């Protein structure tokens, strides 16, 4: 099984996890709105997952960059750039004192992430299937040509 296929399999699973993470963020933010949770608990809860999520996204991006899968890499470029900018400006964590004020912005950002990861999930699924099926067809024809 070629490395591309393995990369897509791992990316698929990661995209699923990241999708779940983004949905969790959205739900937590709406819980804050409905007063089910206070800002300090929210900030502590979400901040533990911020860096791992960015790290996972970065790993995916680097893997596709090194594999030479240009379309996939370009797909991931905007989000990775956005994450890098946030870290450089030290804005990536949720601040308990500010979060109520900037709530709608955070919600919008996380909605967009949900949509993006969903798109990514299906795109990786499609790429994985195409890679595997093309490989098997190529080998099938090569084998039957003997």
């Amino acid at each position, binding site marked *: *099984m070629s490395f591309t*296929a393995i990369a897509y*399999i791992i990316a*698929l699973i990661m995209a699923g996890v990241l999708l779940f993470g983004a*949905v*969790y963020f959205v*739900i*937590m933010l*709406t*819980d804050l709105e*409905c007063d*089910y*949770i206070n800002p300090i*608990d929210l900030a502590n809860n979400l901040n533990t997952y911020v860096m791992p999520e960015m790290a996972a996204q970065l790993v995916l991006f680097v893997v596709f960059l090194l594999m030479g899968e240009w379309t996939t890499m370009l797909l991931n470029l905007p989000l990775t750039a956005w994450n890098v900018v946030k870290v450089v400006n030290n804005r990536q964590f949720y601040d308990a004192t500010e979060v109520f004020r900037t709530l709608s912005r955070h919600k919008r950002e996380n909605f967009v992430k949900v949509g993006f990861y969903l798109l990514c999930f299906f795109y990786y*699924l499609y790429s*994985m*299937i195409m890679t*595997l*099926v093309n490989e*098997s*067809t190529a080998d*099938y024809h090569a*084998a039957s040509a003997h």
Partner: protein
Amino acid sequence: MSAGLSLHDPLEAHHHQQSEDVVDVRRRALAEIDNAKFGWFHIRACLVAGIGFFTDSYDIFAINLCSTIMGYVYYADATGSAKNTTPTSIDMWVKGSTQLGCIFGQLAFGYLADRLGRKKMYGTELIIIIVCTIGGAFAGNTARGLSVYWILFIWRFVLGIGIGGDYPVSAVLTSELATSKNRGAMIAAVFAMQGFGIVAAAIVSIIVLACFRTAIEGDQLMLDYVWRIIMGLGVVPGILALYSRLTIPETPRYTLDVEQNVHRAARDVRATVSATGHKTIDDVHEPLHPDHVQVKAQKPTWTEFYHYFKQWKHFRVLMGTSVTWFALDVAFYGVNLNSSIILTAIGFSGTGTPYHALIRISAGNIILNLLGTLPGYWVTVFTIDRLGRRTIQFIGFTMLLILFCILGFAYHQILDKSVAAFIVLITLAQFFQNFGPNTTTFIIPSEAFPTRFRSTCHGISAASGKVGAVVAQLGFFHLKDRGGKNAFIPQLIQIFALFMLIGLIFTWFVPETKGKTLEELSDELDN
């Protein structure tokens, strides 16, 4: 409250005050559940409850694929056209085993959840599912008599009991914990996890097959690992959800209506609705009454059940939900009969080397399900609380009736003229099954009955559904080959159209439950 009353006996006045307090607490507790804003708690409830259905459909897809794979392993030495294929008779029983077990599970767990409580039963069925899936993955031949297929049959029969048990308990649990505005969406979302199960199973199959590729191409019998791994991986979501299931608090409605313990119910409501799920400090205080009002618990009895359903206006609801579910499941199976034809048509058929064939079957199934089934589930989730259950069920049955009539009477003409049209029709059929009766027949029984019978009646409806599925699976399996391979299918589809008509007629008997609280629904029925 009782300021103007002059009661001679101070204890009587105390009791009077107590009973008003109790009514008040009950009303407030129910209002708190019904009016809670949609939050993480609700999503988590849907996920935990939905794991059972995820595992169910994962497992159904897995057994279909694994039976094919087992053909490559255990019949690799057969000769002629039987080579590499599981014989039809064995295939049919292995695939039907879970459905058979489901019938017993649904009836048994449905009744027990009403008798003993939802919390006591929840988690048990998941344990059965986990144990039996692992057992099935380790199935082997006995030295004399039973082949691996029959051992698998036994394991899967008991697995069916677990999966069947999940249906009534999850549905009723979700229904009783949901807000009345979103109840339909929540239960539909629980059921929609079935769509994910199929896709997940196909993805897992592709990954496992790809990992074993070199091994398979060297030695075909290595496929034995593949089917066992695919089956066994089905337990992972279940294990993740097990802790949540075992520690879920009893639904406040059961505590209120059947156990008549108002204060514990009120505490449970506050515990469940808070995002962290932990009890807060001010909730632990229990009012110190010398005796609770109305201690006699209203456990359901058969006499009560009989008297309740002797009345036509109650019985017709049960009949409606059961017959519609039966009619639907018969046809549900029928649509899947055609999937192999479609797969061949879109170039994902199962020919060639084992690896080649199997990977294409899995990939093709993902495509098929993403087209029709998955969207159907989710359109229902988002529209059911607006359109209503009856509307969607009518739409579904009508469209299915039309589609099956077209397909049944013009089967070969359509196939010869345009395969694309055939695919579109089948996809539409799959879509309208899920944006339609498949989901609504699951939702309505979990709302339309009073608390003390809710789970039993849901179990009865679900069991009649599964009877339909078994009838289709075992009855029509050989019937479809009458007059040649797959030659009887058009007539079968006409029979399914007839069942859709029956379902359409019986939909008149079920009530519309959109937007009403569960108490309103049982009060209406009692009047």
